[in-house]
């Protein structure tokens, strides 16, 4: 079930990516879409609007139904219940070859028996575009994906990355209303993946077509998409911009799936419009928040703390407790001992054992070449965080 974000509305949230080409109209509308395969429910009552010009990501673990949703949009599966509208028109009766959407397949599905240019021309031929026009548009499309001059090659003479570009050109050349990308970067190696991420973004800005991408990689979704939908077990969990998804998750699932998180179960003790407090037995100190939570007092909630939002300070044995400037004394600061250190070059990950035995992750950027030497194993530390940092989740 979709819940409204629980933490304060993102009034002072980071402003989203500038997206002048995104319009207000819903180019795609899923209305109560359910898909069952036998007894298995792959997609469960999904209602979702996607606006024209967006780079939209469907994010979720494998088997969450995101690919099924995409395939229903393309026409390869029919929904068991519900309607899919493209440009306001119900497409239930349209077979895949009549829909104004085109797809880039996970395996690319470049026809191995056709030259690159014939692959790209295929869709135009089906539309009955005349020869000269086909040639012009094919060249243009190959140029767009930086494959100019490779039209005469056979697909087996191309690298994986180049084959993906063929698949992109082949779909884009038809000027679809929406381009669908099924796990577009999963088959590429890490270096190429980073490069393709930025290329996909700039390509989308250049052609101005709505892109819908399916991915299980949260980094990829955050990096590329203008808006993401997180799915879990067929249910749409949260739809938000990448920034909101990370900073204002609406459930434990989203908080855990997108990025890394420390999660604590607790009881809501105080809930005023401007402040709230949660007692978490595992944490040792109450969590103070500088905003209201809109939950019932005494109810069970979960506090999600991102590792990078936890500060670490040295703690001498027997010294008095430190205090965070934006929280009352005794809150948002806990003592602990460093139990594990993983040096990763750009940053160092620490695992700190709290007094109750619970371990907490945090990391520090290595701002200088000697930062890694600041802390060592079994060193006593204070962990502290700001009153605006924790996300309180009701589910």
């Amino acid at each position, binding site marked *: 079930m979709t819940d409204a974000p629980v933490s304060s509305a993102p009034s002072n949230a980071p402003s989203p990516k500038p997206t002048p080409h995104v319009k207000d109209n819903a180019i795609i509308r899923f209305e109560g879409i359910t898909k069952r395969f036998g007894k298995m429910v792959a997609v469960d009552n999904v209602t979702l609007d996607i606006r024209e010009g967006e780079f939209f990501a469907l994010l979720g673990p494998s088997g969450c139904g995101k690919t099924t949703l995409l395939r229903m949009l393309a026409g390869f599966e029919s929904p*068991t*219940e519900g309607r899919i509208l493209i440009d306001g028109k119900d497409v239930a009766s349209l077979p895949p070859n009549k829909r104004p959407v085109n797809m880039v397949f996970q395996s690319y599905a470049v026809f191995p028996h056709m030259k690159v240019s014939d692959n790209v021309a295929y869709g135009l031929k089906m539309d009955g575009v005349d020869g000269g026009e086909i040639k012009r548009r094919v060249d243009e499309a190959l140029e767009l994906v930086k494959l100019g001059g490779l039209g005469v090659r056979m697909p087996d003479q191309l690298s994986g990355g180049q084959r993906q570009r063929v698949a992109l050109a082949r779909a884009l050349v038809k000027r679809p209303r929406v381009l669908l990308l099924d796990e577009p970067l999963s088959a590429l190696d890490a270096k190429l993946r980073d490069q393709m991420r930025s290329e996909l973004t700039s390509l989308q800005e250049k052609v101005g077509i709505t892109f819908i991408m399916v991915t299980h990689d949260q980094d990829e979704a955050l990096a590329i998409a203008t808006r993401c939908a997180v799915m879990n077990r067929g249910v749409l969990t949260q739809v938000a911009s990448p920034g909101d998804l990370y900073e204002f998750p609406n459930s434990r699932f989203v908080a855990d799936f997108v990025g890394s998180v420390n999660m604590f179960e607790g009881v809501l003790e105080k809930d005023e419009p401007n402040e709230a407090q949660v007692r978490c037995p595992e944490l040792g100190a109450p969590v103070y928040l500088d905003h209201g939570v809109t939950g019932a007092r005494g109810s069970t909630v979960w506090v999600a703390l991102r590792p990078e939002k936890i500060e670490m300070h040295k703690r001498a044995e027997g010294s008095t407790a430190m205090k965070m400037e934006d929280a009352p004394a005794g809150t948002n600061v806990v003592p602990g001992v460093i139990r594990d250190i993983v040096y990763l070059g750009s940053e160092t990950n620490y695992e700190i054992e709290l007094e109750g035995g619970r371990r907490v992750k945090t990391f520090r950027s290595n701002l200088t070449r000697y930062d890694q030497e600041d802390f060592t194993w079994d060193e006593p530390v204070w962990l502290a965080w700001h009153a605006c940092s924790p996300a309180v989740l009701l589910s």
Partner: protein
Amino acid sequence: MADEGLTALPQVGRPKREPRDKPGPLEYMRQWPLRVIVVATLVFLYAPLITLMAFSFNDSRRNIVWQGFTTDWYVKAFNNESLLQAFINSLTIAFFCTIISVILGALAAVMLWRFRFPGKTVVEGSMALPIVVPEICLGVAMLVFFARVMPWPMGLPWPLNLGAITIAHVSFAFPFVATVVRARLSSFNRELEEAAKDLGASEWRTFWDVLVPHMQPGLIAGALLAFTLSLDDFVITFFTAGPDTITFPVKVYSMLRFSVTPEVNAASTVLIVVTVILTAIGLQMQNSQSKEKKA
């Protein structure tokens, strides 16, 4: 789930049966033109066989109109000394043919898969010949061979008198076995063998502990194939069989030439049932094999 919004959707004119989705574009089996073709093909394949089996229970000498149920034809078939002998001959030949073919076929497969040797292409090509050479050519070759080159002694006691036919059957069956086993071998992961040796197994133990278990599904499939090929064969047997070494198909052929009584139907039904059971056993063995593999 809260689907109040959904029940309101128009579901005009559709039967309220279990709601099935529209077939996806590639679910050809759920589209009627292909269903019709598949069903028609199956009717084409099975109607004659089912008719044949049904009429083995028909209480009439002629295979035309249903007169009533009887098992008389089975009794007659089992009391027909020469038919029974032919049936036993067929099974005996198939049994020996299977054993020899599986051994030779497995050896040939391992040889071609494992070793590089001079003249390999020639051997490989010759191994494929019995598979592609028309049956009639092999049949007449066997006729001439056993008549002029290596006459099979007359009057040997049963089952030695079946030797010529068995040899002829092995000659065309074992290359089939070799093909099946070799296909199986090609999926063998050589690292398994190296792992066994790394853990201290000798060459011979590695062969038995690693390679043979991997070959097993291929050996079963090959054995099944050899058995049915032998049981099935008419043409080659027709040319190698003597008056006292009649096999079931040859016997049925001569019965067809003279008089067609439902006795033939009864005997055929028995053979069909035997093949179906054998196939089922073979598939079962292969299935449990592949399940073990997955587990």
